[in-house]
């Protein structure tokens, strides 16, 4: 029972990271119908920058803020410089361009920082403290929950309570009509990419210290887990992405806890296949799949 509880909390902590990363994928999918396969590489790039700053200044938190700001910038840059010019007549075009970006970003990171793992220390202890004699949560887990919770709350407030959020939703759902109503749709897309990439950077900063450290491909497996979470949630649904992330996190935690850590990556892929075959619209999608 103790073990089950431990795996549950560990799974929720990882799941929270997947939830944030899946949320970033959903933000971009809703706005542009592109699955941003480059999101993992973009997040790693900002994490490298963050740790460079942290190393140089000795302040993790300065690096953390730099990661988020770099996320905003790289997201806006990718939309303005690359994605805006992708021909949307075939959905494959965006995928191919995003995969190309992955290769470029990972190549450049390898050239600058080298293709070896570099240490990425966590800002809080990752040792679980005891609650009633059972070691369940570490301070770092609490930090993860707080950070992801804050992002979910802030994004919800942005989208439901502010004029900018209303503009962003309208621009995503009906670009031409929105322009007729005076919404600067191009600007909203840039903002959406910037926010999504910043959320992706946050997820990267949260997950990288819990794994082997910084590496150009450090987010590849995380991407697959988060993508599975987003698909599980229906790709269109922010709530679905968050729930999907938690479900995937729990499932992976139980599988690696009871069956062995080597099975976990295969389990993610198996789950992705099962979801795509049985519920391609996801578990939480309200409407039937829209065509582009």
């Amino acid at each position: 029972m103790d073990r089950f509880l431990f795996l549950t909390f560990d799974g929720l902590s990882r799941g929270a990271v997947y939830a944030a990363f899946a949320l970033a994928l959903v933000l971009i999918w809703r706005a542009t119908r592109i699955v941003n396969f480059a999101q993992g590489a973009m997040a790693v790039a900002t994490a490298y920058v963050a740790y460079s700053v942290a190393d140089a200044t000795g302040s993790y938190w300065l690096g953390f803020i730099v990661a988020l700001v770099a996320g905003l910038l790289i997201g806006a840059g990718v939309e303005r410089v690359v994605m805006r010019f992708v021909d949307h007549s075939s959905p494959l075009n965006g995928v191919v361009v995003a995969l190309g970006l992955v290769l470029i970003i990972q190549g450049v990171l390898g050239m600058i920082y080298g293709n070896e793992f570099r240490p990425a220390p966590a800002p809080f202890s990752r040792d679980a403290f005891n609650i009633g004699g059972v070691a369940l949560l570490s301070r770092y887990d609490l930090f993860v929950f707080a950070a992801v919770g804050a992002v979910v709350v802030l994004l919800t407030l942005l989208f439901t309570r502010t004029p900018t959020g209303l503009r962003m939703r309208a621009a995503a759902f009906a670009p031409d009509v929105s322009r007729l109503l005076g919404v600067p749709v191009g600007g909203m897309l840039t903002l959406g990419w910037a926010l999504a990439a910043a959320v992706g950077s946050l997820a990267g900063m949260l997950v990288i210290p819990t794994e082997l450290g910084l590496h150009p491909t450090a987010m590849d497996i995380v991407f697959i887990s988060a993508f599975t979470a987003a698909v599980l949630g229906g790709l269109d649904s922010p709530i679905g992405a968050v729930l999907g992330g938690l479900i995937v996190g729990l499932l992976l935690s139980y599988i690696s806890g009871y069956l062995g850590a080597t099975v976990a990556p295969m389990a993610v892929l198996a789950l992705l296949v099962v979801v795509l075959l049985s519920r391609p619209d996801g578990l939480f999608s309200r409407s039937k799949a829209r065509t582009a």
Partner: protein
Amino acid sequence: MSALLEVEGLTAGYGAAPVLHDVSLTVEPGQIVAVLGANGAGKSTLLRTLSGLLPATSGRVTFDGQDLRGIKVERMVHHGIAHVPEGRGVVTELTVDENLRLGGLWRKPQPPLEPIYELFPRLAERRGHLGHQLSGGERQMLAIGRALAAQPRLLLLDEPSLGLAPKITAQIMALLRDLRDRTGLAVLLVEQNVRSALSIADQGVVLSLGRIVTRHDAATLVDDADLRHAYLGF
């Protein structure tokens, strides 16, 4: 009185093939001008070109004396032009209230929505409903109400009667006439439903294969049997 909207020699279309040829027309302040014609005559293309969704290949459009060339779609509403596109353009994933707010969002301070709800009490009852939960008539009211929330001087209205019961169409037409009389709103009204359009229009313009073939007072078009037969088919 100088014209509010002046279109001179407008040619536009999709790709290399022009749909509109050398179209000229004017709309005075407080005037309702009906653009009539068969399917494919270029009526919607005309509105889409005027609001900037389609680039014009040649010609001049001036609004209140200002050249509209090069003005972005999203700026048109700032100049006082609101376009209700064909198929109504309600954002079906947003609520009635959010759709209406969107109409006046660019104005600072944002205009109150109560006058719109007074105009369309039905919308007030459904303000929390999502767009896709509305009936066709309600969507049309919402699309028009949302355009009015921008407090435009010219309304470009594309096929408001499409798919609506005659009674609802009549309500909408009466509302337009009332707005024109009360606020001096000018309307460029594209319609397939010739009778209901001419019932409120001051002038009628007939488009055929992208050209203006005739332009008359609405009353003349309705009363003159020859004109009716020749251009309107009834």
